């Protein structure tokens, strides 16, 4: 039954078999392909030393995105193109604009993080003909450097941005030849990997292997292997299922397929409500957003994922599907208890429906973390209130980091509903938050801090919706 993994690596077709399905792309590059320019710094998608560009065929052209090779399982690359730092020089041996600028601006010290920065920035330059400073900052938010203090790297990016010749080399024809019409099935050493391409194949293979691990972006599951050394005998990969990868605007609202990456989902959600942009940028690095999916961030049930709170506040519905059919539930009802979700055997998360936001609804989401980028939230708070003529008609509040699950603040909501949107109502709602949550102390924040912040964020929401001129935004990037 097994087929070989086929992908294009630095312009050459690779056909791989006999390697474990949970082998990471990073291990493959370094130990099998002997491309040691790509480095390992953390094996969990935190440091970016392993950043590579992944090309995916899209309507006759190749879309490139940067990802962390350390948590990408090799079979997920089937049908894709991989570009590493060794492939950036021109045929005549010239450095590409990013490489050249990194040398000139002294963007490299010990040099270990350098290939990752070069790949992150080269991918940006390919995708963005005139990168703004914000784009540059965003592109490297997932790359850690312990030597330079980052400024020389920013200088290098600005210099490279002046260059015209900035395309990654791509070969559409070679990629077209390795696309599959049917499910990809791979097996090595007794471990199985399936990459269905249709929804029917997906529920079918899941029914056949109900204990299989569902794999989407791998930003969490990858760590189960690299960090917790879990054995995953059967993996089902959702990333090639066409039906799960689309975003649609319907009469009901925005439908986001479970395998839509956060990068794509954010674009749609930001158009839906611009106030989400600030949080999105700090949600995770570009590399993680390119890989991680909306469905995965919900399905793994993490109490500190930043996806669910805003979606719950926006009254999102979740559609689950199995061979028996589909069912829809309110997103907040999916989270039963810590790491326990309402997902029955054979069910997959199919899509999220974000209902149209009625006119007059004010919405905000805030992320509070120790470090500005690439940090897990201590508290993530999302607020939606329908305010008509100074009165709160409807309110939905959800927090992450305040309980064992992403959780609504029903007491606070009830304190707001039907009340005038004023200081007195605010104080009552703030006090009610204590009934909604009993947060815990961990290394990210103390219980008291979390409770204080939750109260303050509600106050901030009040200020932003009543006194829009007051500056409440998190301090912006240094200009």
């Amino acid at each position, binding site marked *: 039954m097994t087929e070989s993994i086929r992908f294009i690596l630095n312009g050459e077709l690779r056909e791989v078999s006999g390697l*474990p399905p949970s082998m990471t792309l990073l*291990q493959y590059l*370094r130990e099998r392909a*002997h*491309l*040691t*320019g790509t*480095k*390992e*710094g*953390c*094996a*969990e998608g*935190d*440091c970016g*030393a392993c950043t590579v560009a992944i090309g995916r065929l899209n309507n006759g052209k190749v879309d490139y995105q940067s990802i962390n090779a350390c948590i990408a399982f090799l079979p997920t690359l089937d049908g894709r193109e991989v570009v590493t*730092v060794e492939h*950036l*020089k021109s045929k005549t041996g010239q*450095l590409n604009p*990013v490489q050249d600028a*990194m*040398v000139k601006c*002294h963007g*490299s*010290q*010990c*040099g*270990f993080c350098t*290939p990752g920065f*070069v790949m992150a920035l080269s991918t940006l330059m390919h995708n963005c003909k005139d990168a703004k400073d914000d784009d540059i*900052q965003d592109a490297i*938010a997932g790359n*850690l*450097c*312990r*030597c*330079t*203090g*980052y*400024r020389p*790297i920013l200088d290098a990016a600005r210099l490279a941005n002046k260059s015209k010749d900035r395309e990654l080399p791509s070969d559409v024809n070679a990629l077209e030849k390795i696309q599959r019409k049917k499910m990809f099935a791979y097996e090595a050493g007794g471990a199985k990997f399936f990459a269905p391409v249709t929804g029917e194949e997906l529920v079918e293979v899941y029914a056949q292997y109900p204990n299989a691990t569902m794999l989407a972006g791998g930003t969490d599951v990858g760590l189960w292997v690299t960090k917790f*050394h879990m054995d995953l005998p059967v993996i089902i990969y959702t990333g090639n299922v066409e039906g799960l990868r689309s975003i649609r605007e319907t009469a009901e609202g925005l439908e986001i397929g479970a395998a839509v990456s956060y990068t794509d989902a954010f674009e749609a959600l930001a158009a839906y409500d611009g106030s989400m942009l600030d949080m999105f940028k700090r949600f995770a690095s570009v590399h993680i957003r390119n890989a991680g999916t909306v469905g995965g961030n919900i399905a793994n049930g993490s109490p500190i994922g930043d996806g669910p709170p805003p979606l719950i506040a926006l009254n999102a519905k979740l559609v689950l599907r199995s061979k028996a059919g589909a069912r829809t539930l309110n997103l907040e009802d999916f989270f039963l208890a810590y790491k326990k979700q309402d997902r029955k055997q054979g069910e997959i998360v199919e899509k999220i429906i974000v209902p149209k936001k009625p006119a007059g609804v004010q919405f905000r989401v805030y992320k509070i973390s*120790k*470090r*500005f*980028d690439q*940090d*897990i939230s201590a508290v993530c708070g999302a607020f939606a209130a329908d305010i008509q003529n100074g009165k709160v008609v409807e309110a939905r509040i959800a927090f992450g980091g305040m309980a064992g699950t992403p959780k609504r603040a029903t007491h606070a909501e009830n304190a707001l509903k039907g009340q005038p949107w004023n200081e007195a109502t605010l104080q009552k709602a703030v006090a009610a938050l204590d009934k909604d949550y009993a947060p815990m102390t961990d*290394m990210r924040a*103390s219980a008291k*801090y979390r409770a204080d912040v939750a109260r*303050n964020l509600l*106050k901030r929401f009040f200020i932003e919706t009543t006194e829009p001129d*007051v500056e*409440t935004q*998190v*301090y912006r*990037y*240094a200009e």
Partner: protein
Amino acid sequence: MADDTSIIGKARPRIDGPAKVTGAARYPSDEPAPGAVWAFLVTSAIARGKVKSFDLDEAKAVPGVLDILTHWNVGGDAKPPAPTSKGKPTTTLESDRIWHDGQIIAVVVAETYEAAREAANRVHVDYDEEKPSATFGSPGAQEEKREPGDHEDPKIGDPEKAFGAAPVKIDQRYETPTQHHNPMELFTTTCFWQGDKLTIYEPSQFVYGLKNNVAKQLGIDPAKVTVVSRFTGGAFGSKGGTTARTAWIAVAARRLKRPVKLVATRDQGFTIATYRAETRHRLRLGADANGRLTALIHEGWELTSRPSQYNVSGTESTARIYACPNVETAVNLVHADRNTPGFMRAPPDTPYMFPLESAMDELAYALKMDPVELRRLNDAPKDPINGLPWSSRSLMKCYDAAAERFGWKQRNPVPGAMRDGDWKIGWGCATAAYPSNIAPCGATVRLDGDKASIGLAGQDLGTGAYTVIAMTAAQALKLPVENVSVELGHTDLPAASLAAGSSHTASICHAVAAACDKVNAKRAQGETGVIEETAANVPNGLPDSAMDKINHGQMAISRGFGRKDCTAYAFGAHFIEVRVHGRTGEIRTPRMVSAFASGTIINPLTAYSQYMGGMIWGISAALFEKTEIDLRAARYTNDNLADYLIPVNADAPEIDVLLVPEEDNAVNPMGIKGIGEIGIVGVNAAVANAVFHATGRRIRRLPIRIEDMV
């Protein structure tokens, strides 16, 4: 042709840049090792006790597993590595003893990385567990006065009496946290044997040290051991000493007769190597009504492992920064069930200058004086402890240059007086100082027509060593820099000392200059063709035999204090702005200006980066970095890069680095003082001082937490 003044002191991009941006630069784990098999470490899940027994059946059954090393089968095959300090090292596979959480207790070797990892996870261990002590204040932690020997306790005058009589006093306690270096490169080792010859690929700050130590551990002739570390992916002290892993990988390779490769995981790096230990301090300052210091009493407490006496004793610096007639210092050790700490960027000065520079700020407020003026008043014309002259001292020049650039004059000293909307603004300053050290070093220069190649077993840890060597040689040989190639990090080359203590540039450049002098002498005699010369430089004050010590992998260094002719320090001044949010307590550091005077700067471009990197480390140490310890289990809990917060790009402020020109003819012939560490020293205090100015809250325990602000 270059003239004498055209190379040293001119900014130049690093010569190893193209190799680094294309992925061609070979770090030790990138070196090809055909036929290599993989090792994965099994580390202890308890912090104190013994391994009662292993159940290895399930691990051995994993397909591809070749060998499992434990104290049962290899315990006698290697001795523990020599410690870097008094006392004894903790052990690993030599016995069943467990000294700390995360100690190496077994090494699994398999055909693939994945099989080794899986099998390591299937090693079952039965422990005899005892209750561990985690840190200061834990039941069972043992406190003792530090043994004399590695460090001195500076003392002059009658400090207790002077402090008692002082009209203005500061008497406070301070704490600094546990921190881990977390260089981007992991701790890797590849070993293979060719007959009785062992080759080791391992990132190192001292390849001769590693070669000799491992030889001693294995009981073999050091001449049979080769160590290669061409590029090191960041070290910051963590790759200076020999750790236990290396000998066991060598033993595994010998047993299997195949190359064995280890890439330890990020979390294992927290316990199989060293770290910056947590410290506590009591600092007392007495001053007269005008602000002149009359007493300085600094007592420190440092954490270490059970058997080791490792300590950093930063009182050797804090005692001599300011003019004070009555000084007393003491350092105590506290032993707990932890791995042995080690060097981390400015090991003594980062933790010890925090209390001094915080207390100076507190004293300035007590006196209602400007903190810069307080330092000016107490600027020391000579070393206050031994009365020796400074080799050069530009502290106040640094303060004045940085204060002006920062706009310090506009500061309203009243805490909380400066605001921008919801943001409370604070401006703080602090002194940076670091002793100027230099070590013996050898170098080979080969001149072939208009091309030169330089070789020495030093290290470029990202500091720019390749480039400053090429510049030094190009200047001495009157060649363009492009015509000079440099080879480093290989024990076939002449020995260089540990690349640490901000000593490396001074050490290697003097050796290269000495070898070039010999080549030039041959040229002057009319010699043509290929000229190859090897020379060693032994710094003034050290015996000639000091070079032998380096050849044998031991330490020999001339430190900035303890010299007979002068005391030599580089100085600097930091100014930083913090903004503390009135509602959330978030702390931001939008801008920082620091000025440094470090004698001769060979390459301003690489120097600038060293300073700036150090400053960002300082901000990070003040606001983010702390290794959290589970007090019940004596275990590090945030042992990964998601939870151990090193700064990301967005955290880095606008930084201005000012290089204050300084000519120092006394420190060493080339006037080089060292720059790798001074950038971090004092930044933690500057941040805390700025936070006080913003909020009126004096935080004496690092890192400053958001909870401290609400």
